[in-house]
């Protein structure tokens, strides 16, 4: 794999289709996002990536290997360095997968997500990728054994390689499915970039759950975009679990285009060391008579930083929308830091909205309550911290998936962060 700056150089000296030309222009005109850009106010990538796409920061190193046996009973769709490995991939009945040229899908993309602006990362992705992967869930298909999409970042040959899968999933009317998508790296000690994109079109009466798990190694930078177009009577459950990477920026963009639809956009991030986790969510109610609910929580240990931006836009004709949003964060580390921005823009007059955000410590009154029942201080702190996180996992519909995530949460985060409590940390 080549470094990005070499790839861009190559593109500049070849003749491009207008599709690729647009992508190149957006890459060059936007540049690496940094804090002067409103959407990147608290995540200055220029601190992490140099102009020639080299890594500037090293993690305060810690690593933990991933248990490969997790989810082994599920159908798997395996990506290696951003490319499908058909030999390891097995799809459940009612579900099909095609590799298609990205340019052939251009009109589909702009039809489904007309609001989507071509930014730096979308630009790179379109420039570099010739193909994308389309998954289709048949109409009325009910898929019990939820397929697991696993992204392995195996062997970037050189520091700074980019892994950029694009997956488009179309859920047929009346279908029901759960997709778990796991990004996990190998402990290869070579930093890599992920720039991933997963889009859903959820047709009438379809129910889909997307559980995204980000456990890449702490050398890497993870940028991702999850998009969904939610149509009439459809239900979208989205859950993001973010525990890995040095820097993770996860964009979740939901376009609600159907009445009587339900969108649940939840997540949890746990960061320690000098990790930086940024969840950027944008929920757009284009039509009314529907609901969206969001609960995002974070726990930050050591000197980790967290960012949450939660835009909810209710357009003028979107009457009778019921929308809730809550972001809660716990700071465990003396140098940990959180920035949260709930942003509500309502242009319709008859809507129900509730939103809020908190940043703080574990509630001392809750600690005392447990202590007064015989539970030791550090046990009480552990219980409450676990409960704080587990409360979000309970939003996941599929029980087996929820249990696997609870295990991952423990292995990748709680085992370390909560153990401090025993060492007399507040």
């Amino acid at each position, binding site marked *: 794999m080549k470094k990005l700056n070499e790839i861009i150089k190559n593109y500049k000296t070849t003749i491009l289709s207008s599709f690729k030309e647009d992508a190149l222009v957006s890459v060059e005109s936007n540049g690496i996002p940094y804090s002067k850009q409103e959407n990147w106010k608290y995540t200055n990538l220029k601190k992490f990536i140099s102009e020639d796409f080299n890594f500037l920061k090293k993690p305060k190193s810690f690593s933990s290997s991933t248990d490969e046996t997790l989810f082994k009973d599920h159908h798997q769709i395996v990506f290696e360095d951003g490319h499908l490995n058909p030999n390891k991939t097995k799809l459940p009945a009612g579900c099909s997968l095609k590799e298609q040229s990205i340019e052939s899908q251009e009109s589909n993309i702009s039809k489904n997500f007309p609001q989507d602006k071509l930014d730096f990362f979308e630009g790179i992705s379109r420039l570099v990728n010739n193909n994308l992967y389309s998954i289709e869930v048949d109409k009325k298909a009910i898929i019990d054994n939820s397929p697991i999409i696993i992204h392995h970042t195996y062997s970037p040959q050189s520091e700074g390689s980019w892994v950029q899968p694009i997956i488009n999933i179309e859920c047929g009317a009346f279908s029901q499915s759960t997709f778990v998508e796991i990004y996990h790296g190998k402990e290869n000690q070579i930093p890599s970039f992920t720039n991933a994109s997963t889009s859903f079109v959820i047709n009438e009466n379809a129910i889909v759950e997307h559980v995204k798990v980000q456990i890449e190694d702490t050398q890497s930078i993870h940028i991702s975009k999850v998009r969904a177009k939610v149509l009439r009577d459809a239900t979208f459950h989205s859950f993001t679990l973010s525990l890995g990477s040095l820097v993770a920026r996860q964009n979740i963009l939901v376009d609600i285009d159907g009445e009587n639809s339900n969108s649940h956009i939840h997540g949890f991030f746990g960061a320690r060391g000098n990790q930086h986790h940024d969840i950027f969510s944008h929920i757009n109610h284009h039509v009314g008579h529907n609901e969206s609910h969001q609960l995002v929580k974070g726990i930050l240990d050591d000197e980790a930083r967290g960012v949450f931006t939660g835009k909810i836009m209710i357009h003028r004709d979107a009457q009778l929308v019921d929308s809730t949003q809550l972001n809660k964060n716990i700071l465990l580390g003396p140098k940990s830091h959180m920035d949260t921005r709930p942003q509500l823009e309502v242009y319709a007059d008859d809507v129900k909205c509730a939103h809020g955000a908190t940043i703080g410590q574990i509630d001392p009154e809750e600690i005392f*309550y447990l*202590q007064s029942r*015989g539970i030791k201080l550090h046990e009480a702190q552990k219980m409450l911290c676990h409960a704080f996180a587990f409360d979000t996992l309970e939003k996941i519909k599929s029980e087996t998936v929820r249990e696997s995530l609870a295990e991952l949460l423990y292995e990748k985060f709680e085992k370390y962060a909560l153990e401090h409590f025993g060492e007399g940390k507040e």
Partner: protein
Amino acid sequence: MLIEVKDLHAEVEGNEILNGISLTVNPGEVHAIMGPNGSGKSTLAKVIAGHPAFEVTSGEVNYNINGKMQNIADLEPHERSTQGIFLGFQYPVEIAGVSNIAFLRESYNAICAKQGVAEMDEQEFKNYLRPKLELLEMSDSFLDRAVNAGFSGGEKKKNEILQMTVLNPRLSLLDETDSGLDIDALKIVAKGVNALKSKYNATVLVTHYQRLLDYITPDFVHVLYQGKIIKSGGKELAHQLEEKGYDWLTKN
């Protein structure tokens, strides 16, 4: 003697709230503490339970541990609990994400560990709980819900008493457990408290109302005012207070 509070002074953020309290409770006794809002009743209960927000500036709290009166100033709240001190909160907190049964079992097992008794597994513990739930007329559904989350005011108070019956304390400090209860719930809660009464343990009831004392008869009634006990008497004192209020005691 079970507990002896001696000239206790306590403050929070520099404000003195307990202003020299002395109180002795023997095993088998029931004490009622009454007094106007803000007089320091909850503070007294919390200080005895070891709440870290309050600083004891002078005086002491001595408690009977293995037959000896010991100053408990240095005991952590969880140690006071495993030694048999129970605080029934005026405002029980809600704890999202922790199921009531997991909480009850964790707490029960903490006491078992302290006493060197074998812990109970989930099924054993459920069997142990069943008669207690029946006594308090609580349905099983309260066990799987998060601790106090979405419980009505009365349900929270019942849940406190459930915890009390599970932990079987030697000293119960029940802070306004009767407030917010309808008359049937009040009778049930009183039944729970009375079921636990023995010559080995004692109960301190903080209350504003005589009606609780119709069901749990106190041996002593104390009036707390501005961080001090200004009057003590028998159960007839509660009737007097019900009739006359506090003015006749505070205006001299």
